[in-house]
Every structure is written in structure tokens, then in C-alpha cells.
């Protein structure tokens, strides 16, 4: 069973990086990983540290990409982000979560940036 989403997923990161740079973000790190999970892109938007999730879809049949950040993923990203801030000694910095949603199929191509897509979540 083929995961169609995956075929576009890899190039999604390059597209997202180009898009964010064009918007003036400064890229700090990509594919940051620790034992709790992973964050696609960590960047700086003026003085705010931004943790970015890249979502790609090849059709809107199931959902629009911007709807795809599950609560579980939000909790994971929150934990990983806090660990990153601590490791870089930036616990006092302003930070937020953005989503870059990329939709690409036969007829439509969209890239959307959702700033402050969700709030920090502490899971149970």
C-alpha cells in the first residue's frame, strides 16, 4: 500500500525552507531530533524562535494540509521545542509554532504559512 503523501514529502522540506527564507525567516536548524520526537525546521522570525512543522499533501480528498497537526504531534513538538530551548539556553526567548502547508496535485498548488498554528501543549 503506497503512501502517496510520502512521494511529495521530501521535496516539501526544500520548498518550505525556500518559502520561509523568502518571508525573512532565518533558518537555524532542520530535522532536529531527540528521543521524544522531531521538529522539521527551527527558525528565527525577527526576535521570535519559530518551530515549524511542514505538512504536504497531494490532494484535499482527506484533509487540507493545515488541518493535519494532531494533538499528539502538538504535544511531541512542545516537548521537543522545550528541550531545544533548554539546550540552547534560550528558555527566556519568545517562541511560537508555525505550520507550512503545501498542497500539490493535478490542478492545485498552494503554499500557506500558518503563524502561531497552535499553543504549547503539555501532555498527560
Amino acid at each position, binding site marked *: 500500500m*503506497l503512501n*502517496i503523501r510520502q*512521494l*511529495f514529502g*521530501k*521535496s516539501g522540506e*526544500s*520548498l518550505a525552507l*525556500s*518559502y520561509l*527564507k*523568502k518571508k525573512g525567516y532565518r533558518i537555524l536548524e532542520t530535522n532536529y531530533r531527540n528521543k521524544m520526537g522531531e521538529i522539521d525546521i527551527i527558525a528565527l522570525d525577527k526576535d521570535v524562535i519559530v518551530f515549524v512543522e511542514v505538512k504536504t499533501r*497531494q490532494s484535499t480528498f482527506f484533509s487540507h494540509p493545515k488541518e493535519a497537526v494532531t494533538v499528539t504531534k502538538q504535544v511531541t513538538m512542545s516537548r521537543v521545542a522545550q528541550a531545544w530551548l533548554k539546550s540552547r539556553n534560550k528558555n527566556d526567548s519568545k517562541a511560537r509554532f508555525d505550520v507550512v502547508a*503545501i498542497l*500539490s*496535485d*493535478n490542478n492545485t*498548488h*498552494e*503554499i500557506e504559512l500558518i503563524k502561531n498554528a497552535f499553543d504549547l501543549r503539555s501532555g498527560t
Partner: protein
Amino acid sequence: MWSYEEKAALSGFLTIAGVDEAGRGPLAGPVVSAAVVLPVDFPSEGITDSKKLSPGKRDRLYDRIVKKAIAVGVGMAEPEEIDTINILQASLLSMERAVHDLHVIPDYLLIDGIFTISYDAPQEAIKKGDMLSISIASASIVAKVTRDRIMKSYDLIYPDYGLAGHKGYPTKNHKDAIAAFGVSPIHRKSFKGVKEYL
């Protein structure tokens, strides 16, 4: 177009992957390769090399391939890599990445062109393979459609060049746009047609 696959199967190979690339000639964007493993009952009507198909037909065949193939892998090399190692090496690298991206492990590769790749499995390079082997033709369709969609997305970020139309190929309007607007971060700086404008 099953003769190469049949011959490999008769030699005992079970997981045969066709590999092809798209986007060697453009002045901008990545080079994209695909690797495709097809089932023996794959409906092959209409499948031929991607260059001979209309965009609409190509999209429909792409949908059929990704739905019915045993496995599809995609790999790419970015413009920076193309500039560093040259387009031929980048093309081969993208093919290796496509093969590694498969979720099955192929035991035989059918590769379009004259070069084999750095991968630990028996392989055969077939000149004009995209016209002769159904697996390579399918890979050429996946590579082309994937790359076209990537370039249409880049058009949203760098709208001055007409990327959605020419996909980075050196058409007159692309060359005029480079002359007018300069180069973007996704142009291949080592290429003739780009390096003069750095």
C-alpha cells in the same frame, strides 16, 4: 514492454525496479528520479516514456502507477548539489536516493541510460530504456510528474520566472526573465545560461 522484466524474472530475480530521472536540462530546480517496482499484472495500457505523453495523460498514468505499483521511491538532488558535483553525478545520486527510498529491497535494477548506479544489486543500464521497459517508463512518468509539481510549487515562491510553464527549462521566456530579474536561490549557478548573470 515487458521483455526486460521477464528476462530478469526468468533469471530468478523477484523484485525488479525500473529507474529514471527527470530534469537534467533545466536551469533551475532539483533533478528528480523515481524507482518503480511493478506487479506482473500491472495494467500497462498507455504507458510509454513520459516525454511522449500529454500532461493530462501523464497525470492519469501517474495516479495509476502510484496506486497499483508494489513500491515507488523518489529521490532528488538539489541545485546546490548539482553545482558542487555536476549534473551527471547529481542525476545518478538522485537515482540512488530513489532506489533507497523504496520500501522494498530490489534485487535487480533496470536503469534508463548508459550508466549504472552505486547500489549493491545486479543492474542493467538500457539506452532509451523509458521506451523499452514498462518499469523504466513508469519511473519516468513518476519522476516527471513529481518534478513538475515541485516546480509549480516553486513558482509560488519565485513568481518572476514562469517556472509553472517551463519547469526551469531554458525557454526564451525563462532566459529573458533571468536577464531581467537575475537568478533565484534555486537556479543552477554552475550552468551556462545562469552563471553569466550571477
